[in-house]
Structures are given as C-alpha cells and as structure tokens.
C-alpha cells in the first residue's frame, strides 16, 4: 500500500476553473499585465496625439542638429558647432566627474569624521560631532550658495590674482589656475603603466596576505603598493626621455591663458556635496562600528593590537557589513544631488538638457534622456555596491 501510493502522483480534487488557484493566479496576472499595458498605450498614444494637435515636434532627430550654445567647463572637445547629442554627453561627463570625485572624497572624509566621533579625545569627538550636526542640518542648496558666494566674492579678479608657488599657481574668482605638462604621447604609456601598477599592487596584496596566513610574517603592503603604482609610470616617463614641457598659466587680456583651471562652480559644487554627504557617511560609519560587540575591541586589545590596528584590522572590516547597504543610498544621493549644480551654474547633465529643451521645445524626449542617464548611473552604482556587499558578507562555515 505505502509503496504504491509513493509512486503515484498526488490526486487533485476536481474543482471549478474559477476556484482553481493555478488558473486564478494566471488570470489575475494576465489582467494586471494587460491593464498596465493598456495604461502605457493610453499614455503614449494620448501624448502623441496631443503633441501632434499642438504641432509640437517630436522624435529624437534633433540630437543630430547643431547645438549652437557654448559650455563653460568641458572634459572633451566641444564647440557651439557640435551637436545636441555631444552637448548632452558633455553634461553627462561633467555629472559623472563631480559624482565620482564626490563619492571618493565623501567616503574618506566621512570615515575619518565618523571614527573621530568615537575617539576618547573629548575635543576631537566634540569637533566631529559639531561638524556632523552643522552640515546635515542645513539644506545642501544653501551650502552650495554659500561656497559659491565665498569663492566669487572673497577672491580677487584675475588681474589681482593671488599667485602662489613662485608664480605658477593663481587663485582668483575665475578659479584655480595651475600648470600642466604639455600633451605628449608618453602620457598614454604612463596611464597604461599606472593600470599595470594597480594590478600588480592587487596581486602583491594577495600574496602578502597568503604569506602572513601561512608564516605569520607581516609585509609592508601599503608602501609597496604605493611604490609600484607611482613608480611604474615614473619609470616609463624617465625611459621616454623625461619630457618636461609645461603649459604655464599667464595673464593675457581678461583671463589666464594656458595651464589648466578648476572653475569656481565645480569647486563650490564638489565641496558642498562632499561636506554635506560626509556628515551622513560619518553617522553611518559610527553606527557600523557601534553595532559591533564590545568584546571585539577588547579581544583586539588583548591580542596587543594598537588602537589603529584594531580599528583597521578588526573593527572596520566587520563594521563594513553594516555600513555598506546604507552607504549605497548616500552614493546615489551624491549622484542625484549633483543636479543642484543648476543653481550655481555648473554645466552638468541637467543644465545641458534644460537648454536643449528650451531650444528645441521637445521636453518629453529630453526628460526621458535625463531619466535614462540618471537611472543607468544609479543602477550601476547599486549593482556595484550589491556585488561588494555580497563579497564582504559574513561567510558562515
């Protein structure tokens, strides 16, 4: 009996189709999907109809047309004769530049402040606390205005620029001008050497960890890695004949010519984003460390590790598991908050697209472009952080 019933499939009791949970599940899903589809179709067709009736142009053909406007701060070649597509690309790169730098700097600064708040030194921990409270309790927009006003009002004009370091660096309300090496083919090879250096440092790190695990001998990883990463490009530069032609900034007419410049709009935006976000990062780091059991730091102390070592080797790696998920939100916030650039005139993605909307009148297409751009950047950050989170997750054996 028992053997027989094991072999046969479980009997289904016969029910009416509208009471069958499988069929009902399918029906509901089909209904929901078709409702969503219908809504989407309605929105799209209605929009197209309204646009056509108002004789507003539609489609993405305008991207190929000449933009006609100038952009003040570009990372790639751009002129008013370039296309709208390129103008938008310039904006995307500018957004990425401020977002990437902002994420790196806010992480470093925030970690320092967060650890500082836990310091037994009364003064240091109080200063860090004030910092956090000051920056996170005032809207970012006001900080941006403040920093922008500080730069444009407090610094002199270009003709009275403050010169530093033997007339090579100039500070004015037009930004910081400093000399850069003239373009040279060797730079590409140096870049390659830099990447090789990073890869080498990675492998050295792995080898050193393994050696320490087997023999117990520590290895000066930090200095070796730095040496490799900086040393390799330097050697390439020496081998290439050490070309040292520099482009020096000099006052010509209204402005400095030559060298390169960090513009006030960029500086104000970056400083504002970093200081504001680092306050949140600091709290996340602090909460991550406080989430650890007190026994962890006591055990580290019992092993004879210094405070710095126990922080670096014992506490922070464990705290990371608590820190990383909320940190992802902060990184996304930096990226999205960078669109406040519009208030102080930094030419980011939103600025480029807004001008394009105004010249072409095609708001829907352009806003789709903005949304697609932010979405892909944000999803990339999320994907990376999720991957990292999985990597550092506690592996239970």
């Amino acid at each position, binding site marked *: 009996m028992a053997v027989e019933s094991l072999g046969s499939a479980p009997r289904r009791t016969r029910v009416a189709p509208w009471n069958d949970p499988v069929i009902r599940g399918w029906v509901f899903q089909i209904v929901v999907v078709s409702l969503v589809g219908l809504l989407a179709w309605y*929105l799209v067709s*209605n*929009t197209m*109809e*309204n*646009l056509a*009736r*108002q*004789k*507003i*142009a539609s489609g993405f053909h305008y991207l190929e047309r000449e933009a*006609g*406007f*100038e*952009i*003040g701060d570009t990372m790639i070649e751009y*002129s*008013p*004769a370039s296309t709208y597509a390129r103008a938008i690309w310039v904006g995307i790169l500018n957004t990425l530049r401020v977002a990437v730098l902002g994420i790196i700097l806010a992480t470093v600064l925030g970690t320092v402040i967060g650890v500082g708040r836990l310091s037994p030194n009364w003064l240091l921990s109080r200063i860090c606390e004030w910092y956090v409270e000051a920056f996170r309790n005032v809207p970012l927009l006001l900080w941006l205005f403040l920093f922008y*006003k500080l730069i*444009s*009002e407090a610094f002199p*004009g270009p003709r009275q620029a403050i010169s530093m370091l033997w007339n090579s660096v100039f500070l004015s*309300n*037009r930004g910081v001008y400093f000399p850069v090496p003239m373009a040279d083919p060797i730079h590409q090879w140096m870049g390659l050497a830099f990447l090789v250096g990073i890869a080498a440092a990675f492998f050295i790190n792995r080898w050193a960890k393994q050696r320490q695990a087997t023999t117990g001998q520590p290895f000066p990883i930090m200095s070796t890695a730095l040496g490799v990463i900086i040393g390799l490009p330097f050697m390439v530069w020496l081998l290439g004949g050490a070309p040292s032609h520099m482009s020096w900034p000099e006052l*010509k*007419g*209204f*402005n400095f*010519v030559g060298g390169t410049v960090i513009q*006030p*709009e960029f500086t104000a935006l970056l400083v504002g984003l970093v200081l504001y976000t680092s306050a949140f990062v600091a709290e996340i780091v602090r909460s991550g460390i406080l989430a650890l059991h007190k026994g962890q730091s006591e055990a580290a102390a019992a092993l004879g590790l210094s405070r710095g070592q126990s922080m670096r080797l014992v506490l922070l790696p464990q705290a990371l598991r608590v820190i990383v998920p909320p940190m992802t939100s902060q990184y996304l916030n930096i990226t999205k908050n960078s*669109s*406040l650039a*519009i*208030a*102080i*005139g930094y*030419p980011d993605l*939103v*600025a480029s697209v*807004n*001008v394009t*909307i*105004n*010249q*072409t*009148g095609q*708001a*829907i297409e352009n*806003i789709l472009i903005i949304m697609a751009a932010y979405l892909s950047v944000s999803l990339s950050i999320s994907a990376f952080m999720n991957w990292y989170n999985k990597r550092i997750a506690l592996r239970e054996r």
Partner: protein
Amino acid sequence: MQARLIAAAVGLAAVVLGATGPAQAGKDLDAVKARGMVNCGVGTGTAGYMIADSQGKWRGLSVDVCRAVSAAIFGDSEKVRYIPLTSQQRFTALQSGEVDMTMGNATYTLTRDTALGFDFTGVYYYDGQGFLVPKKLGVKSAKELNGATICVAPGTTTELNLADYFRTNKMTFKPVVIEKVDEIRAAFFSGRCDVYTTDASSLAATRAANVPPPQTIDDYMILPEIISKEPLGPVVRHGDNQFADIVRWALYAMIEAEEYGITSKNVDEMLKSENPSIKRILGVTPGMGKALGVDEKWVYNIVKQVGNYGESFDRNVGMGSPLKIARGQNALWTQGGLQYAPPIR
C-alpha cells in the same frame, strides 16, 4: 533640480495625461473666461518690463500687455494672475497650459513660432543684444572681448547669438550660465564675469536698478555694438485662434490708440470725436468688438485703464522712468520707428 523641474514635470503631466488637449479651437479663451483670470507668464524680475513693486503689484511694459488682454476680455485690466517664470521654464509652462500667454521677453523666432507649438502675436518691443561691462575693464568695443568670461542666461536666443557672434569674429569666450537672473547679476557684479550680455533693454534696466553699492551706475557701461535683432512678442499656444486674435489686437489697440492720439486722459472726450476711425476704434460705431468676440468698448477699456503704447512706454521704461530709454526703433512708424499696427476696421 527639484523646484525647477516641477514646472516641467507638471507641464509634462498635463501633456501626457490631459484627456482633452488644451488646443481645440476656443478652448483657451473658454478656460480664461471660466476662470475669470488671464494666467500671464512673466519673467522673474526686470525693472521697467516686469517687476513686482513694494506692494507686490506687477508693473512694467510687458505687464501692461497682459493687462490690456484682460481689459479686452473682462473690461477690467486687473483680472490677471502673474506667474513668474525663468527663461527655461516659460515655454514648457506655456506648452502645458500652465499659463495662457507669456510676456517673458521672448524673442520671436521661426523655431519658436513653429516647432515649439507657439504663435507670436506681434512685437511689443524691438530689442537687440548688447554687452554690459565695468568701465575699469577699459574695453570700448565688443570686438575687444576675445577671451572674456561672459555671464548669460540659459535657454535664450542671447546664448545662441553670443556663440554665433564670437564664432563669426573668430574670438573665444567662457560662458558662466546661471538660470536665475538675480544670480547672474550677482555673479557679474562680483566680478565672476567680465561681461554680462542680454537684450539691451534689460541691460539698461540692470544698470539702472541693480548695481550694488558702493559701486554706482557710472562704473558700468553698455558697449555700442548691438549684435542681434530681438523682436520681443507676446506668445500663445497653437490652436486657439480666437484667443490669439485677442492677444494680437490688444497690443495693436495700444499702438493704434497712440497713433490717433487717444490717451488715458482724453479717451472720454474722444468718444465724442467725429473722426470715423476713432469712432470705430472706441466702439462708438459698433462692429469691431463683435468681430473679435469681445465687448464693443474693448479699446476704450484698454486705453482708459492701461493707457496707449506711448504712455506705457514712457511710464515704465522711457523718459518718465529711471531707465530713460529713448523710443528709438520703438517709436511709431509715423515718427521714424518700427511700431506699426494694422488698421482697426
């Protein structure tokens, strides 16, 4: 971004969701009448053209055109809700129906008249783009501006003309582009830019009203070059021709009244005039109001409450104002200017 994209987002929502588009014939006028108010988009503040005074009342030459439209439709020039819009918000706000018309110093161009889905109904101010510089810069001509840093508003014809002018003259410049006009002026007066460029009328207004002390109006000068044509016109959406007609003829009525010497002071006596043109204009001989779909006394109401074009010009930007702008191209055609209204008959 949040605040400034809201206008665009609301606008988009209206275009995307609106079951009946706002573009059927008569729709805009019906909506205005049902609301009892004209929603008029204006700039965020240019002395003499559109600026809220200390009591919060909007005044200026551009504002007077909104008032004339209101007077024509309602017989009362104060039935206007003013909606301040930046140069970037104004067109989306109009496309989406957030405002019925804009008087935001928009230049009449082919693209705007066609691909953006708008109609310009006339020219209330013939303007041109100029350059404002501090005198201590020592520049006498726009041709000397090679390498300058220039403050400019985004999404304007100004921004495009600027790029064109420098390309034509093989010069380079660095733009500083800020949306809010107050912020641009602040950046210019703090020395962030060497030059501020926009329409010469606005430059005159900025120079007269916005120089921060201890600097004075004499520390700044407008360069002689005018690098573009900037005919500024009232803008309405495509689709409601009757509303467009009213906006068009409200402005023409102000110009026509000046030509026939009808002013806010003498309009009551003019009602007794024997001149058949004046009788037609003021509705003593009926017909014009009916043709336009408004009250027969529409011109009377406009002139009585707002004044004719010349009165409005003098009061707001001309010799009766701090700006002291000469009539120049904006004089009537009979006096060597360009202001010319088709006959009201």
